[in-house]
């Protein structure tokens, strides 16, 4: 084979390698954009959902039930956190979102994974208990809650408005508040 042909073959291979790497980079970027374009669904698939979503639960003392029925007047939210989760403690934007939502008239409930994992409330809360330790199966069977912190925001009719698992960013706070005021 002449050196000219070898040179052409190597140059072609180089061009192909560059093109493939660029294609891979673009594909990775597109896949990542698609992946984070909307929140991951926490809703269970294959489970027949009740017509109306009810968030019913009881505080650790078991004294008074927390009940939110859909078709109410206001949006409401559930923050799934634990005192054993370091990320929950450092989730400043999550705590800020709680305060901002409460200011906007949204009821925010704290749900914990297990008894004994209740968190210290940092915001001024109304007298009604908002920290739920025991929750009804009606609500449980709608969602897959794997990790704390998870933030779930619902419309007054009980449908999901916004959700995020993991510590929140300033952008998340803006997005969630934007959804409420939409």
């Amino acid at each position, binding site marked *: 084979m002449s*050196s000219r042909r*070898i*040179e052409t073959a*190597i*140059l072609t*291979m*180089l061009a192909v*390698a*560059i093109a*493939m*790497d660029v294609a*891979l*980079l673009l*594909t*990775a970027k597109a*896949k*990542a954009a*698609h*992946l984070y374009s909307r929140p*991951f*669904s*926490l809703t*269970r*698939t*294959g*489970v027949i959902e*009740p017509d109306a979503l*009810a968030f*019913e*639960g*009881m505080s650790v003392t*078991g004294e008074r039930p927390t009940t939110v029925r859909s078709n109410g007047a206001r949006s409401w939210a559930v923050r*799934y956190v634990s005192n054993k989760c370091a990320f929950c403690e450092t989730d400043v934007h999550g705590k800020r979102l709680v305060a901002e939502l409460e200011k906007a008239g949204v009821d925010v409930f704290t*749900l*914990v*994974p*297990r*008894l004994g994992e209740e968190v210290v409330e940092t915001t001024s809360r109304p007298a009604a208990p908002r920290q739920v*330790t*025991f*929750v*009804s*199966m*009606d609500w*449980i*069977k709608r969602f*897959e*809650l*794997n990790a704390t912190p998870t933030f779930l925001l619902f419309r007054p009719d009980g449908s999901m408005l916004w959700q995020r698992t993991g510590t929140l960013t300033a952008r998340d706070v803006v997005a969630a508040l934007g959804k409420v005021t939409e």
Partner: protein
Amino acid sequence: MKAHLVVESVLIAILGIHGWFLLDKMPPTREAVERSATEANQRLRLLDGRGIGVQGDPIDLGPHLEGQRIVAFLLRHGTLSEDLNFWREVGRLLPPSSRVRLLAYCDGAACVQSVTAQIKEGDFPILAYGETVAAQAVFNADLQGNFVIAREPGGTSWRHSGIQPVDIAKGLRP
């Protein structure tokens, strides 16, 4: 061979290796991430039998005494009487020496409403509200037709046809 050909060949090799690692680091698809979340949810385990009973009473079957096992299962509103009778029979067949504590989770408000009228003296505790992780573990197991034993991995089939209370009781005996 000319020097630039060597350089180009090295570049191809570098790009090839770079591409290989890029392939490896490709983000998963949304479906793969959600599937993995579902799998993680399936791995949630029941640790303790705690919650609020259908009559509003706090229930706590822990702490775990040596040899005691908490067997948790879901009562479905649609098959409530059959489910209750099945587990009453299991409870009847279990000798006290088995140290098995049965614990039922009602599958929702409709179940709670119906079961209250059907409770009999000596029945196992029935939860209306449970801990989030434990309730998910029991619900996931029931989707597979299973019940779970606290602090033990996996579930055991009971809803599948042909399985009788005597089979379950036999399996739960020490």
